[in-house]
């Protein structure tokens, strides 16, 4: 009883500490996290749709899912570059990272639109 309860307590303690730590992250990072979550959910919904009705225009499905996945990946890259605690990108101005993010997204979406059919 004590071990299970301790593991449950440990889990809860872990969760709480994560929550409080997360609250300390800067707002712009939180925005980016939110964006990633949004993209992931959109991808999930599309997968569920495909699972229910079949993958007939497979190219459309792929382009939809990959657009979400791609934009999420790009957002993660942005987060890494913008994060001040990340020593590697100390000298990179965040505006530059943002500009890269925008450009790559535009290229990604051009390809996605072409593949959408």
């Amino acid at each position: 009883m004590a071990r299970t309860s301790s593991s449950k307590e440990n889990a809860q303690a872990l969760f709480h500490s994560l929550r409080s730590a997360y609250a300390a992250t800067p707002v712009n990072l939180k925005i980016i996290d939110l964006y990633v979550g949004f993209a992931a959910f959109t991808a999930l919904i599309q997968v569920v749709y495909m699972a229910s009705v079949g993958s007939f225009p497979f190219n459309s499905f792929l382009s939809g899912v990959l657009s979400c996945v791609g934009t999420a990946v790009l957002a993660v890259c942005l987060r890494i570059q913008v994060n001040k605690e990340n020593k590697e990108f100390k000298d990179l101005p965040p505006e530059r990272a943002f500009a890269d993010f925008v450009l790559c997204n535009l290229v990604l979406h051009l390809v996605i639109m072409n593949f959408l059919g």
Partner: protein
Amino acid sequence: LDLRFFYFFLSICESASFFQPISDSHRSAAVELFSPDHGSLKSLEETYEALRTFDVLGIEKKPDVTATACRLVSETVGSSSSTLKNVFYALKANSIVKCKINDKAYQGIITRLNAAVDGASSLPDFYYSVGGLVLVKGSKGDVHLADADGIFRSVKAFRQSDGRWRSSSSNPESSAFAAGIALETLAGVVSLASPELDQSLISTLNNDISKLFDSIEKYDDGALYFDDKLVDGHDHQGPLATTSSVVRGLTAFAAVTDERLNIPSNKILGLANFFLGIGVPGDAKDLFNQIDSLACLESNRVSIPLILSLPSTVLSVTKEDLLQVNVNTVLGSNAPPLTVKLVGVFTSGSKAASLVESQELVFDDGTGMYNLKNLPKSIDVGSYTFVFEIVLHELEHEKIYITGGQKKVPIFVSGLIKIENAEIAVLDSDLGSIETQKKLDLAGQNAVSLSANHLQKLRVSFKLTTPHGLAFKPHQALLKLRHESKVEHIFVVGNSGKQFEIVLNFLGLVEKFFYLSGRYDIELAVGDAVMENSLLLAIGHIELDLPEPPEKATRPPPQPVDPYSRYGPKAEITHIFRAPEKRPPKELSLAFLGLTFLPLLGFLIGLLLLGVNLKNFPSNAVPATFATLFHVSIGAVLSLYVLFWLKLDLFQTLKLLGFLGVILVLVGHRVLSHLASTSAKLKSA
């Protein structure tokens, strides 16, 4: 090979001639050709031709024809402007219809004709003028030619050395046609001359006529005719008109002289055969020439041809037909007393002796024909040549008439052939034992049904006997087997004497039949021209079982396809479409579309919860505009993508994208560098 035609026309290989005298078919043709609605009674010449033809054939002239003719005649005779040719033909027509012409008109005519004779320069001028005077003399009586000798010599001046005559001094062409006209003219001169003409002139003309007859031409069937070969084609009269002209001239001349013309009589017979051999002409002028010439020959003073003809050359032994022979003059009138002898009967194409003795035919007063009482027993079915001879009773008649010696006539003797013991059987190959045997009734219907395999044989046999009990070999005795796929095979049925038999050994025929098993229709054809009961009979069918064809076996020949079938409708093409994919129902898709927007909503709500603000937006005017431009151009690019999805193609998009991209990069660079510099200033400060 079409087995349907068993009757072939007889081919005359020898010079066996066979002509019929004038008959009622000529009379009906004359009525038809010379009818006014035929349009052939316009000129005097045609009117005269019609009248003469009707007169010779003994056809009653319709009153309106006579009336029209009389009107034309009196018009021409009365007018002083009518041509010489018209006057001549008017007088000729008048000699037949005998209209009343008053004396004054006659005097005028006579004066005119005399003047024409004096002033004549070409042969036709002499012909019309002298001929006209002869005709006037015929109706009036007292007409004489003043200088007969001189006129005779003038006409003779047109003679050429080869026996032909020129028609005018200007035209060097000589023709037999002109010779005929000249002879007729000279005959007219002789009959009009008073005192009598110098006889020596007439004798030399006799020689000219013999010279003319040297140029006579001959057909294979014994007909003789004259034809001119003129360089100037449009004057060419044709053999019928040329020969008619010569015959008219010849007979006219023979009528006025007592001297015997030295023309062989069988040449006269040859000329008669030429005219009779035409049959019934289809042209009015040809019919006139034919009838007129035959009328001249009918009672000419050289020799009158007698024509032997048979009403039918096919006699039936079974029906016991009588052999009948007719002897007439060319116009069909009665001949003088004579006997017809059957000299001999020979099988066609054989040089063996005659099958019958020479015998006389019996004259039947009722029909006016000579009959052979019974066909001799030695004459069975087949094709024969009968040889006849005419013997005149009185000796003097032999100078007047020409009979033409022995006449060969091809005759077919037909009859019913007895077909007996007809049967069809299937035999076993080695032993020859009969498996199936069926009797056939070749006079009626048969529907035999047999079956055989390739180890068996098919035998068809029958017996043929002529009415006199002899063996008969027909021209065609064929057995045909036709497969259901229309491939046919034909076999000849051989015979030994009266028995006909054919045995088809299928073992040897397997390859010839192309290994086609199945149902074969059997057809038997037995036929000959002299067989009255020739037959083409479907006997029945046989189911043949042949082995499978080996690899290298020849295929049966392709059967003829109806050549128009390729224009018919073709086979229907059924297209197989790919089944369209099953699409989800519209409502479900729309629901999920809505669902997709939910995360976006969640994102926006999260942003609000985080407390985002636009504080970092530049406040100064220039950076502010750039910032807005930056956002606007991003929006433009995204809407360009939407347009690209909706209707643009890649190249258009890339062009626009390049344009927008440049703007975006410039603007973005300005804004972001401004933002970077402000945040750097804040940091340092």
